[in-house]
């Protein structure tokens, strides 16, 4: 594009029939799986960001009303980190259950417990949507992309 905006196309196995397309600080479109077909048609429009595909793959745990997904984040053949997703299923208003979520996370994450996600910024009382999850993954993946890979020293 003209201004060099980045558009992320993401998939989530929790929502197998959907495709998420988002712009940083921009709208997140939720579409059905045919969106990928459309992107193939639109190939000429975009410069495909060089092999930047990143994914997190792991196990999904259900603990009472909580869902915990722990995954290894990989970019191509190399592992870059670990992602932990925690969801409190009965509640759809972020503000109403943040404290509970934090308490739950502290019980197994200790010091690694994160602060409130920025996606809730000003809209504390709006209804949670899968798009909010994808925005958080996008931010996490971008953070991992920017991380310097630890060089492996070798001797010839």
């Amino acid at each position, binding site marked *: 594009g*003209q201004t060099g905006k980045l558009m992320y196309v993401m998939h989530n196995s929790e929502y197998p029939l959907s495709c998420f397309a988002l712009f940083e600080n921009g*709208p997140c*479109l*939720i*579409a*059905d799986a045919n*969106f990928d*077909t459309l992107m193939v048609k639109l190939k000429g*429009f975009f410069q495909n960001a060089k092999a930047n595909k990143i994914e997190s793959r792991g196990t999904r745990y259900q603990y009472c009303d909580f869902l915990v997904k722990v995954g290894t984040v990989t970019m191509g053949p190399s592992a870059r980190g670990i992602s932990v997703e925690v969801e409190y299923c009965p509640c759809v208003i972020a503000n109403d259950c943040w404290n509970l979520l934090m308490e739950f996370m502290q019980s197994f994450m200790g010091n690694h417990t994160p602060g409130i996600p920025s996606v809730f910024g000003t809209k504390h009382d709006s209804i949670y949507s899968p798009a909010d999850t994808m925005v958080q993954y996008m931010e996490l993946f971008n953070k991992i992309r920017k991380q310097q890979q630890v060089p492996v020293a070798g001797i010839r």
Partner: protein
Amino acid sequence: LVSGVRGPPPSPFVLRARRSMDKSGMPWHLRYLGQPEIGDKNRHALVRNCVDIATSDNLTDFLVEMGFRMDHEFVAKGHVFRKGIMKIVVYKIFRILMPGNTESIEPLSLSYLVELNVVAPAGQDVVSDDMRNFAEQLKPLVHLEKIDPKRLM
């Protein structure tokens, strides 16, 4: 409500966005229609490649973010009939007087437009014969003709 969006120049990439005005909460519909297929002259109907996508309701914001600009929009009011996989739409086209305001509209003409279309898997050309046969049954009430897009451009 239907709006066509044109891609950033130089390419005339057209996407159509559509939403229901009388049913709230329904997904928006995004459609891509390709160029008419070659070998079209012998077929009774216009055949084009088609990709249909259901989306969330922030579709227009998203398309603008992608670099698309709205080309035209209109309101269609009418009826949809089905016969097997054939869809017949009888509708009146309304011009929108103020962009984005669907309350103030005026009909483009007094007549209804009758459109017969089918979405079928690739290669099923025999479908156009079924369409022609059905079109014959509507005569002399309505004369359905194959659309020649070049004439409309």
